[in-house]
């Protein structure tokens, strides 16, 4: 195919006659209507409704500077993947809103804010306390799991208040969860939140909008008698290496006995690198491994060998999260054995 073939083919992408004129007429009408009082009233009514009903309309924050990114600037390149206006609920005194959400399915972060609607709400808001920053028993997000018998991945659910954004009527929190894999049920999270009279919960779609690359892992030689890496998932934020269990653990009913020596896990973590297309190696920091049940969502593997987010590393020092460009990763090296990616 040459350039002329390409341009000729593109030239065929035109609408039927009259569409151009129709669209022009329509947008002229919109422009005129946008100045009418009726439209502004409708808009105001819509905004009020936002706090009165539960809804889940993902609108992407394209131009508005995200508060989530102000707090987590490392995710700036993923700005277009941040969804806004995720969820809202009121109990007449208080309105809770999930303003923004960024998720790759394993790392999920939401900006949550409370607004007092009256004195009762203001009083509740001024008195609301929690044990500490981090895992918050009242206000948190967890993977939504219907069947625990087929789920054994690990997760944490950090919640951090943003006191500098607080006013007399508002308090802001970053709520998230960090799972060791994506094989919880159907990409949903359960959001727990207190209101003035009771604790409530809601199911929120936390499936990823971020492209996840996945590759089969094949190597010429086995790196262990205990496990065999079979699959990797990579996003800009996180990775998970699935493997076949050949004796790393034993399962009897619900009881699992982990048999991998600590030394082996240390060695595994210290000798795992991403192989980049420019020939460099990037160390990866794994903060989790565990058992799984073979099913479609984990590629029928039964072991999460390594998983975590990408972080700054210097020797033994592990620092802040960083992003990678998954398309520039051509393979992974584990214990000196290269696994070059195949689709």
């Amino acid at each position, binding site marked *: 195919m040459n350039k002329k073939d390409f341009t000729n*083919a593109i030239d065929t992408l*035109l609408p039927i*006659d009259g569409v151009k004129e129709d*669209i*022009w007429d329509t947008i002229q009408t*919109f422009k005129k209507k946008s100045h009418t009082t009726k439209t502004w009233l409708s808009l105001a009514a819509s905004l009020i409704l936002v706090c009165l009903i539960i809804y889940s309309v993902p609108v992407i924050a*394209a131009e508005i500077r995200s508060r989530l990114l102000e707090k987590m600037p490392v995710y700036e*390149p993923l700005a277009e993947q941040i969804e806004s206006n995720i969820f809202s609920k009121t109990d007449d005194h208080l309105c809770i809103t999930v303003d923004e959400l960024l998720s790759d399915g394993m790392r999920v972060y939401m900006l949550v804010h409370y607004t007092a609607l009256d004195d009762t709400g203001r009083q509740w808001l001024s008195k609301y306390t929690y044990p500490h920053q981090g895992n918050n028993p009242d206000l948190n997000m967890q993977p939504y799991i219907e069947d625990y018998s087929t789920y054994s991945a690990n997760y944490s659910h950090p919640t951090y208040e943003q006191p500098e954004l607080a006013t007399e009527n508002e308090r802001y929190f970053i709520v998230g969860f960090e799972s060791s894999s994506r094989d919880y049920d159907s990409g949903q999270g359960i959001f727990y939140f207190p209101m003035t009279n009771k604790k409530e919960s809601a199911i929120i*779609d936390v499936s990823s909008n971020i492209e996840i690359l996945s590759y089969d892992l094949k190597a010429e030689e086995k790196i262990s008698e205990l496990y065999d890496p079979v699959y990797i998932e990579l996003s800009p934020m996180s990775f998970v290496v699935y493997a076949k269990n050949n004796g790393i653990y034993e399962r009897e009913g619900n009881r699992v006995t982990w048999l991998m020596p600590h030394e082996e896990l240390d060695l595994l973590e210290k000798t795992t690198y991403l192989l980049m297309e420019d020939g460099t190696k990037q160390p990866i920091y794994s903060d989790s491994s565990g058992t799984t049940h073979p099913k479609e969502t984990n590629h029928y593997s039964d072991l999460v060998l390594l998983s975590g987010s990408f972080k700054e590393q210097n020797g033994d020092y592990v620092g802040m999260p960083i992003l990678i460009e998954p398309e520039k990763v051509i393979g992974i090296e584990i214990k000196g054995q290269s696994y070059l990616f195949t689709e």
Partner: protein
Amino acid sequence: MDKKTAARIYDLYFNTVYKVCFLYMRTHADAQDMTQETFCQMLRRPFRYETDEKAKAWLIVTASNLCKNQLKKWWVKNRLSYEDSLLQTDSKTSPQNEPAAKNEFYHLIMSLERKYLIPTYLYYYEGYKTAEIADMLHEKTSTIQTRLAKARELLRMELEQGD
């Protein structure tokens, strides 16, 4: 922007915006909706006209952003495949009415993933430089260069397989 300038910009760049929208959305109905929304944004928002070229670049960026946002919505994600969309295209605009060779190229091009197709369109059809495309699509220049190379490779591979 005054109405006269808006009408002139609309007339000049309607086809460009429509093509960008079609390459993202893959159906004429969706491309029409997103084209309409793009020009609505031009009229509704504080858009400062400087030059025709800057207006064109602004329209391409806006159309791309609107389409990307639309494609992220779950009901769009789970709706139509490209093959389905071909069945729904209007007969007057369908590539099925085109000569066989052009039809073949059309199918080849539309089989490319959007991340390869859009830079290819902007580079080969609109004549933008890789740095300009990178700026428009919020990507690194090296990423655009890689995607163009990959698109070239994919188109060649497909043709060879077709032979």
